[in-house]
């Protein structure tokens, strides 16, 4: 980790590559359906001719840019560009609706850069000890973690707990359709070969979030996002002030993002949601989450970019990809002929450290690049007439959905879910619990089946599920987050009654 590696990361070529990667990643990530994994996979062949560290910097920069780019569509169109940006829609879109889309996009940029830096510094200084955290998580911990994630539905669906739970249950049932990941059973296809592939999470997400917005755009004559009379002169400066005033939220969310990123199989969507809920749980009385509260954007965006650095920890230390884009990057390294795995740090230390510095530099470059692209994204969404905007976005949802698995049936499913999502939104149901169920259902199921199999083999099922200290901590957390809000609201109600 000497100074030489830092200088190596600063060569003009590496800088140019980092810049190109951030720009390309941000643009690709901003299109709903083109995820970070896709962005990295599409651009892998470009990296073949490069030196391994330059290739890594390119792919890392694309990855981090794509995670940030996902925020644009989330804020301006209520559609997460990548699954990591689900929770960005909760407050980003309401803020944009209030005419402060440019402010929201700038806040997302500052938060993403901060989170990205925390994750990258964790990778630089704490990689080996943090990698052991990934290994301490067994199947049963993943099971309880997903239960904790599902418990977030309770706090996300204010007032409508039953509706939220119904949505979550529907999402979990949908997640079981098709070939079961670990038992290889073929379930709930009703004899249809199309359904063997099951519901694709990103496609379903585009349908449930984006199509209702498009339908609503068509059904009203107003502009999509109105511009308020008092346009902030310097949205960037006030965004910086708002973001860095929430120091505590920023740091907490970045740490959550880093830790969740380390766990293979959890990913940015879970990190964003957990950070969002924590921010909401500790909100001050004047803050109104879900109605355009900047802290909601800050929490999600810092957490999801922190997963980038976090995810590289098991990837580089153990050779086990922390997130799906990491798997692609590991593959690209193997093609390059670099031995990955535990020996990478020893045998190729200079490649690894040059890359980590490169990732840091790319993250910093994301600040100016992100602010500039963000302003263009905002301006074009606001100024383009609806008659052009709706078909353009509609076209992108179809291309994006198709591109994930090169499957036309995914597009049909996406459109059907879109109409379904629009109908239920008229009855007050929201899309998020369904998507949460869809994402967490398989993690819960796999963890449960694996933990049960192992527990039964060692004749200690209760010990497997309730006896492990890490599990106990997660269970305690779940109980606190479920019971505390209820207890507090009862207490204030009692006071009001008395």
């Amino acid at each position: 980790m000497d100074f030489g590696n830092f200088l190596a990361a600063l060569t003009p070529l590496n800088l140019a590559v980092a810049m190109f990667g951030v720009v390309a990643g941000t643009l690709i990530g901003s299109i709903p359906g083109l995820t970070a994994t896709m962005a990295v996979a599409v651009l892998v062949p470009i990296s073949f001719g490069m030196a391994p560290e330059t290739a890594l910097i390119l792919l890392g920069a694309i990855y981090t840019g794509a995670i940030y780019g996902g925020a644009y569509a989330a804020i301006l169109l209520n559609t997460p560009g990548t699954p990591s940006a689900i929770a960005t829609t909760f407050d980003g879109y309401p803020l944009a609706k209030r005419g402060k889309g440019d402010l929201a996009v700038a806040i997302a940029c500052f938060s993403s850069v901060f989170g990205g830096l925390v994750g990258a510094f964790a990778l630089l200084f704490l990689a080996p000890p943090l990698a052991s955290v990934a290994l301490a998580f067994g199947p049963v911990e993943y099971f309880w973690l997903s239960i904790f994630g599902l418990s977030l539905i309770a706090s996300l669906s204010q007032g409508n707990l039953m509706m939220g739970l119904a949505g979550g249950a529907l999402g979990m049932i949908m997640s079981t359709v098709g070939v079961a990941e670990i038992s290889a059973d073929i379930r709930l296809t009703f004899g249809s070969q199309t359904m063997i592939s099951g519901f694709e999470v990103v496609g379903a997400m585009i349908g449930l979030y984006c199509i209702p917005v498009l339908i609503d755009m068509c059904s009203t004559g107003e502009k999509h996002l109105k511009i308020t009379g008092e346009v902030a002169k310097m949205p960037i400066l006030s965004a910086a002030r708002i973001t860095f005033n929430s120091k505590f939220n920023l740091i907490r969310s970045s740490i959550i993002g880093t830790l969740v990123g380390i766990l293979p199989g959890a990913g940015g969507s879970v990190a964003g949601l957990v950070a969002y809920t924590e921010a909401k749980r500790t909100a001050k009385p004047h803050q109104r989450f879900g109605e355009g509260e900047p802290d909601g954007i800050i929490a999600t965006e810092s957490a999801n970019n922190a997963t980038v650095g976090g995810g590289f920890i098991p990837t580089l230390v153990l050779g086990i990809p922390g997130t799906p884009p990491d798997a692609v990057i590991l593959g690209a390294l193997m093609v390059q002929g670099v031995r990955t795995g535990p020996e990478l740090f020893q045998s190729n230390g200079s490649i690894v450290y040059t890359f980590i510095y490169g990732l840091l530099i790319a993250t910093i470059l994301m600040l100016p690049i992100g602010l500039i692209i963000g302003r263009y994204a905002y301006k074009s969404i606001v100024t383009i007439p609806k008659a052009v905007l709706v078909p353009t976005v509609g076209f992108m949802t179809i291309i994006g959905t198709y591109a994930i698995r090169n499957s036309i049936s995914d597009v049909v499913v996406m459109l059907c879910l879109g109409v379904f999502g629009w109908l239920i939104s008229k009855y007050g149901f929201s899309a998020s619990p369904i998507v949460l169920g869809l994402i967490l259902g398989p993690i819960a199921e796999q963890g449960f089946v694996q933990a049960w199999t192992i527990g039964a083999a060692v004749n200690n099922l209760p010990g497997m599920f309730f006896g492990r200290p890490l599990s106990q901590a997660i269970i305690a957390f779940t109980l606190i987050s479920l019971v505390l809000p209820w207890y507090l609201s009862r207490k204030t109600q009692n006071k009001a009654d008395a």
Partner: protein
Amino acid sequence: MLIKKIAKHTAMLTMAAAVSMSASSTYADSVNYIIPFGPGGESDISARIQQSFYKEKFGDDLVISYKPGGGGAAGWASLNGLNGDGQTIMGVNLPHIVIKPAQKDVGFTTDGIHTFYMFHYTPDAIVVVADSPYQTLQDLIDDAKSKPGGVVMSGSGKASANNLAQIKFDKMADINTTYVSFKGTGASTAALLGEQVTAQWGYTSVGAKQGSAVRMLAVAMEDRHPLFPNVPTFKELGFDMVGGAYRGIALPSSASAETVTTWSNRIGEINADPAFRQKMINGGFALLDIDASQMAEFMKERSTEYLMDARAAGLIK
């Protein structure tokens, strides 16, 4: 203003390029190589290694795209509907294409997949962590005999290569181990390293990646793997087991005999390149040269074995 305009146009062009690259990924003379899984897996990695050699030898681009879904079924079910002009090929995996259609109607049959080359396999291997008490395969067998079902082994997938290897070995060694299915080799390796399980049914590629963090007790190859001269084969230890996860390439059924021969020769040529072989060996893969002319016999032999083992274990009816 000009700069602004340029920036705007560049941005739009990049977007358009990204969309078209990921959506269609076919341009003139390039070959569309479809992997029926997501990016980052071993099927993707071995295809990526072929990619650069193909370009070098034949001049055209080999463009890799992904059609995941249903454990590969979505891709294979679509294969014979694609153009058979030789510009589209698809990755094929064993035992998947034998086991899946035997489970249920998944939209394709094993015989309907026209595989023209099997170019490598990742040999099955029993892997333990470096400080495991098992020094040899016999240690594991003794332990499993003393506590039936108590030795827990992770592996990737149910009715998969790992699972079938576990079933076969348990029968041969007359032991009873517990198999825990994980989503992919990465997750199954993480469970091993975190000591959530006693041992792993993995592949030589796990040994190649994990290096000194793990120890392989035996590998399912005819001869020892060049990367691991100290790891015995199951055969040496008295268990007649050779196999793993086989990977090949298929053409749509409408492809002419001539196209099949051309492709079989091309892949054979890449497989013969010493630099390619070295890269594959370093990744822990084992090269295989089953070309179009030997395919029928090879498939028959593998299918019979897979179906027999899977049926005996109740994985298929």
